[in-house]
Structure formats: structure tokens, C-alpha cells
């Protein structure tokens, strides 16, 4: 198999996604049997924007596979602040590592990888454009918890405009059959036009609402993201909306027994601590699943059996 790069879920087939999930689930069952798979392989982790979760999750994944890691975090220490182009960075990387993870605030760099990278490159988050590996671990978690992704109803709530996870998750959901989506956000943070057009092209049905309480009884999954204070020009708007986009225990009374709550983390106040011990709360399992999924991705993209 010759997989190129992963910058968008749009270009990933449902088959490949399911393959990755199957592999991730075998890894989860018996992680030790994969401990030597990437011996002698190097993963470069280049984070031009700060990250804790994604970077640590990828590094943990590579170390658990017996590989090694090199890299940096935050643009300050990279040579991009000296004006080096991304194309040149990629060309150089070809000689330093066997696979690379890149987070960058610049969007559209997947096309640069296509042209200049000879090693497989995986996006660890690209501007507000996409965060494909987060979406894969989200879908893996849904599959694991509900036994399927087809035929589900999911509510996606919070900052749908700037959250880079959102387009990836929606593009991933669009590969499955009969998925119904409720987009729950303030109008100013609704999904971008290009994402909407892609969903229409791919036939993913979605409805829009401002209030999660109106739809919570229909949901199999409630996917919550945080509102970011810095996105609001007027801080009083943020304060006002913060309360409306918070899940309260009482909101869950009408929820299905089997409903799960997911969150890409970090959370602020949108999911209060008191929800953590409820059966619905799956966001910490979700984060743990990230390691299995990223291990599977590294194996697939390196072409290791």
C-alpha cells in the first residue's frame, strides 16, 4: 500500500478509515505485540503552533511502537521565524525522518507536502482548516462505544467556525450512511461556507439550532467544543453565550440512555466537572483512544505490517 499524506479526511476512503480503526482496535487489545514494529524508524513532530495533547499523543504512539522521535514545538524555535519556506522545511525533513507530523497555522500546506515531501506527512492540525487525526479518534470512539457510525444522530456544539476539528469530523461522518447531524452554535460561529458546500456535495444532512436542549433527546452522540474567548470582539458576548453553551446535569434528563458525550479537550466550562462521573462522559476515553489511532496511522503510513 502506498499512502501519501494525511491533511484532509476528504481524501480518505471509508475503507481505509475502517482499516485504521480495525488496526487501532487490535493495538488497543494487545499493545505489547506492536512494541517493536517501528524499531529504527524516526518520527519528526513539527509543531509550529503550540500543542500539548496532539504532540504528546503522537510521541507516545511512536515510542510505544519502538520508534524514535525528534522535533520542536512553537514557531519561536523553528527557522520559520527566520523566513524559511514550508517547502524548504519539507525538503529538509525528507532526510531527517521516516514520517512527520506537522501542525501549522498556515492553511493548505497539504498541497506543499504533495509536491515537496517524499516521506509521509500527517497533519497535527492545520490552521482552522482541518485536524484529521482528531476526527479519526473521534470516529473510532463512536464506533467503539456505539458499535457503528452508520445511522447515528450526532449533535455538534460550540465553536463550529474556528474549531479545526469540526470540518474534519463532518467530512469523516459524510463517508458513513444515514448520519444525521445537528449543528448547535451561535449564528456567528456557524460552519464556514466552504464546509457547508462540501457537505452538500457529499450528501451529509445537517440541521442548525442554537439550543442543544431542543435536540438532546434525539442524539446518540453529543460532541462538545469550547467557545474561545479570543474569538469574540465583544467580551460581553462571550460571557453571555458561555452559559448557553454549557451542558448541565438537568439537560441530560431527556437524553437516551446510550448517548455519549465527547469533547476534543481541553475543556473550559462547557462541560462542568460534575458530569465526569456520569455514564455519558466518554471524553477521557476518547483522549486515550487517540494513542491507539495514531499508532495505527503511523503503521499504515509507514507501510509497516
Amino acid at each position: 500500500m502506498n499512502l501519501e499524506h494525511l491533511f484532509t479526511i476528504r481524501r480518505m476512503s471509508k475503507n481505509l478509515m475502517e482499516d485504521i480503526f480495525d488496526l487501532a482496535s487490535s493495538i488497543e487489545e494487545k499493545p505489547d505485540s506492536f512494541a517493536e514494529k517501528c524499531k529504527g524508524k524516526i518520527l519528526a513532530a513539527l509543531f509550529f503552533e503550540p500543542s500539548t495533547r496532539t504532540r504528546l499523543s503522537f510521541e507516545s504512539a511512536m515510542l510505544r511502537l519502538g520508534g524514535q522521535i525528534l522535533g520542536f514545538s512553537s514557531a519561536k524555535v523553528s527557522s520559520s521565524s527566520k523566513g524559511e519556506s514550508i517547502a524548504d522545511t519539507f525538503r529538509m525533513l525528507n532526510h531527517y525522518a521516516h514520517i512527520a507530523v506537522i501542525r501549522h497555522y498556515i492553511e493548505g500546506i497539504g498541497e506543499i507536502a504533495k509536491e515537496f515531501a517524499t516521506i509521509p506527512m500527517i497533519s497535527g492540525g492545520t490552521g482552522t482548516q482541518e485536524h484529521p487525526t482528531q476526527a479519526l479518534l473521534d470516529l473510532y470512539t463512536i464506533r467503539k462505544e456505539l458499535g457503528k457510525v452508520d445511522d447515528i444522530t450526532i449533535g455538534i456544539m460550540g465553536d463550529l467556525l474556528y474549531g479545526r476539528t469540526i470540518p474534519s469530523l463532518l467530512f469523516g461522518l459524510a463517508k458513513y450512511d444515514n448520519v444525521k447531524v445537528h449543528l448547535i452554535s451561535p449564528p456567528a460561529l456557524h460552519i464556514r461556507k466552504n464546509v457547508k458546500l462540501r457537505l452538500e456535495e457529499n450528501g451529509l444532512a445537517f440541521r442548525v439550532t442554537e439550543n442543544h436542549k431542543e435536540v438532546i433527546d434525539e442524539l446518540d452522540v453529543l460532541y462538545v467544543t469550547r467557545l474561545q474567548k479570543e474569538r469574540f470582539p465583544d467580551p460581553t458576548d462571550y460571557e453571555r453565550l458561555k452559559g448557553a453553551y454549557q451542558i448541565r446535569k438537568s439537560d441530560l434528563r431527556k437524553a437516551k440512555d446510550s448517548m455519549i458525550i465527547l469533547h476534543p479537550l481541553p475543556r473550559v466550562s462547557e462541560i462542568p466537572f460534575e458530569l465526569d462521573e456520569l455514564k455519558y462522559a466518554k471524553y477521557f476515553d476518547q483522549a486515550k483512544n487517540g494513542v491507539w489511532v495514531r499508532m495505527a496511522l503511523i503503521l499504515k503510513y509507514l507501510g509497516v505490517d
Partner: protein
Amino acid sequence: MNEDKNKLIVRKIENGTVIDRIPPGKALRILEVLGIDANYPYTVALAIRVLSKKMSLKDVVKIKGKELTENEVHKLSFIAPGASVNIIQNFEVQRKIQLEIPDHVEEFIKCLNPNCVSNSHEPITSSFDIISKKPLILRCIYCDRVMEDKYLSGKL
């Protein structure tokens, strides 16, 4: 009648470009895009809202001494789709181009997304797929953002 009227305005030119069947009212915008103003040293003939042979209204522009670049043809195709460009040499039509909105364009317009890689210092040029011609919608092949009619009209 109508033939005579046209002849009054547009005498044949020896070398240059004739743009015919322009959607009515777009002729001035075409001159603007081509950078032709009062300082242009040669003859320019302009007809706005004349009757075509098919009895509908059109604009016509004749520009002596002007040959369009590929880029200019691209731009004009967005402003005046359906118009025809005739390149004239020695009073003869050398080449006829039917202006049509292409399926893909490169370079001539910038992506509206300031964080798009096509706007940063990289060895690539801007590149767009035209995903709808009416209304006009361009999609950046890099960042996936779309640019719509109302944004584009000020840029083209």
C-alpha cells in the same frame, strides 16, 4: 438599419483587438481591467447597448494596437462570459476566442484567506477550481475556502 449604425461607430482596424457580444453595460469595466484610459495612445471605439444581429443588446469594444495576454483573457471571461475576442492583424481576424468561464484558474487572483499558503512566501501560485459559474464561486485548491460573486466583483 442596425448594420449601418454599427458601421458608423466601428471602422475596421488594422491591428488590435475587437471584443464583440459583450453583455450590455460591461464595456467600460473591460477597458478598466485592460488598463485603457484617456492616456491610451491609439484609437479606441466603444459602443454601449447597440442592437446585435439577434436583436438583443450588446456592447462592443475595438482597441487599436492592443493584443490581449492570456491573463487578460482569463479576467475578461469572468466579466463578460459569452463575448468573443477577435485578434486583428492586417485588417484580418487572426484569432477568435470565445470568452468562457474556465473550470480552473491560476495566478491572476489572490485567495481571500490571509492564512492560506498561497499568500505566503512559497514556490507555488494561487490556484482555484470554479465550482459554480452562475452564481460565480471559486474554491482555493490549497485552503478550500470559497470566494463568491459579491467578493469577486471588486477583485476581477
